[in-house]
């Protein structure tokens, strides 16, 4: 199974931890894995993106243009921004919660709703309000775990391995909520 997964979001949304959980799960499933994530200046509300490549043999952590299989969009505009890396017909998991960038806050430009809608013409887009789903599971902080659950449905790694990695990477108090959030995402698709 060779898969190229892109994650896109806004600084502070927890993208680094999501990338870690996905890559460790792939590793525990016996795959080779390499990841990227951008940290630094981008941490303060700027754009952040990560990538996870898994398979028999992985050379570079970078996903070449048009070789992405699945894009996990923690935020719609950021999913749109990184969609150039996606294969036509690839899957986009789209969290619908919009986070407005400075040019929108200052009314210099409009948030690009129509262009984001247009993603559906080229890719298989599944929209979800991950915060709402996480709230149902018990804590809005588990929103990314809902998205990871959806991703798990599109991959073929056993759920037991996902569960194990989630347990090892979230605070002990939050384990149950996150496992629930994972399955809410998994069963959403």
């Amino acid at each position, binding site marked *: 199974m060779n898969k190229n997964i892109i994650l896109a979001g806004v600084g502070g949304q927890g993208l680094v931890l999501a990338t870690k959980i996905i890559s460790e799960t792939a590793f525990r499933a016996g795959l080779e894995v390499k990841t990227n994530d951008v940290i630094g200046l981008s*941490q303060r509300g*700027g754009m952040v993106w990560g990538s996870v490549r898994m398979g028999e043999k992985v*050379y570079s952590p970078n996903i*070449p243009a048009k070789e992405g299989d699945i894009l996990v969009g923690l935020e719609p505009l950021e999913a749109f921004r990184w969609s150039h890396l996606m294969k036509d017909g690839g899957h986009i998991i789209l969290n619908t919660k919009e986070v407005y960038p400075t040019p929108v806050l200052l009314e210099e430009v409009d948030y690009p709703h129509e262009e984001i809608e247009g993603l559906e013409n080229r890719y298989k887009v599944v929209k979800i309000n991950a915060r709402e789903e996480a709230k149902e599971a018990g804590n809005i902080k588990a929103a990314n775990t809902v998205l990871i659950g959806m991703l798990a449905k599109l991959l073929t790694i056993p759920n037991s391995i996902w569960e194990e990695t989630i347990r090892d990477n979230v605070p002990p108090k939050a384990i149950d909520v996150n496992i629930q959030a994972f399955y809410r995402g998994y069963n959403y698709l």
Partner: protein
Amino acid sequence: MKAVLTGNQAIARGFYEAGGLVAASYPGSPTVEIMETLKGYDGIYAEFSPNEKVALEVAIGGSLYGSRAMVSMKHVGVNIAMDPLMTFTQSPINGGFVLVSGDDPGMASSQNEQDNRIIGRFANMGIFYPGSSQEAKDFIKIALELSERFKTPMMMDITSRVCHSRGVVELGEREEIKAKGFTRDQEKYTMLPPNTFKAQYFMKERIKELEEYAYDASFNILEEVEGADTLIVTSGLMYYNLKELNLPVSIYKLGMVYPISTRRMKELSQKYKNIIVLEEMMPFIENELKLKGIDCKGKEYFSFTGELFTEDIEEGLYKAGVIQERKYKGRDTVKTVARPPMFCSGCPHRPVFDILKKLNVTVIGDIGCYSMSVLPAWKASHVMYSMGATVGITKGMNKAMRKSGDKKPIVSIIGDGTFFHSGLPGFIDLIHQVDEEDNMTFIILNNSTTAMTGGQHNAASGRFNNKDDMQVDIKSLLNAMGIENIQEVDQFEYKKARDIIRQATREKGISVIITTRPCALKYKIKEPHFYVDPEICISCRTCVKVNCPPIRMKKYEGIDELKSSIDPEECVGCSVCSQVCPVGAIKRSQ
């Protein structure tokens, strides 16, 4: 046993396994996580020092005592450490010593793109250049061994992509290495002439021996393809990006990019018609080969700035005639709305820059989260170069202004981490040759952490963290220097802070204002959120201009004009927007 590690974590692991004893660092992207990881290992002394020069000196001390030592910093940090570095490297190394420099091709989070391989060479160090987490770990261990064997300091130059990238790493046990101890030997360790005369020949000889060793060293890998007439010489991540293309070319991958074996390269140049050098940033390997008389090409085909992705490599090799067909058609990005970084909800820097912007004064900035005041939403500081530079620049510009009859005020901004890092000597200089026409206002944003890199310890951290052993009082320190006009202010009392800053800019002399609020990311504000009463809001957008993530204009039902709004999920309740609102439309929820 194997684990998934980032390049940074792998470096820390390598140092641990190699029996490393003393490690120091100053936090700077992309290498911050090395020290954060090291602090979790037993048996290693690990510290974040006040600046890179001190960090290097701590590591030098460890190495002189015959223990294995490592110092890590971002590329520009090496500039701060250059003075001890350039002289220390003249000594024969006792305990293995490695300097890790995090370079930043593409400048994801840096103020310049300097290629520190040039510094490593300048300082007569061998330079390792890893391309994966596994290599990062392996090369640290090899570098420490070679450092002892050849009595040479080593550099590991690693790019930000490799620092942050994760990969599977084989873990080993820690090798306990006993420190050899320090033996007094002035010829080796006191660098005055004539000891330094000999040292020049020693360094030359040492690099020559290392170059001979590089000929068949296991970390330089030759992958030859039968019948190929092109050899690509590369290193680090570029090797892996190249491998994605799966081309019928031979590859010489340098684990150590300096020194490069002349004998090996002469042999290879006999065998191959074309030698192409693939590297990010400066033509370092290319220049080395050319100095050896090897006919090669590199920067003709590949950019000297920014990262090189697989697509860029393909394009370069196509231009070079190595390949006739292209699989990728560049790396076109989606053009859409930009998302520059911004101050967090509740950031204590926000009111300060709102005040300065409204005062319309010239502001000399510095490095930290407050550097973001240069971004388009603010344009509230007007010069920004390097750590601690604001103090001297402000003094110099002030002197030029006064000598030219310009009576306008000038404001300097510096954070606490930067103050301790390299702001102090600038402050000491302030009271030298004071002129009665001077008008300088220094605002020290004391949020008591090194915020930009993720909230590391600094000398002021004990103010809010009782587990921290340092709580240097900035005011007392400045008083001791002879600076008297110092005020402390809670900047969340907006009007009071504004009046103090305004008054300071109107007065002649040297004024220092220390703001007291801690970093809102590290010390979360959990106050009831604010909301906008749209019936009172006059749509003036004063609150929108404080550029806080939850604040924007929106359409309310039954009201034609757009009115301000606050996303209750994002608002932390700092109150700054309510204080700038001229009509009292922003209220606290209960």
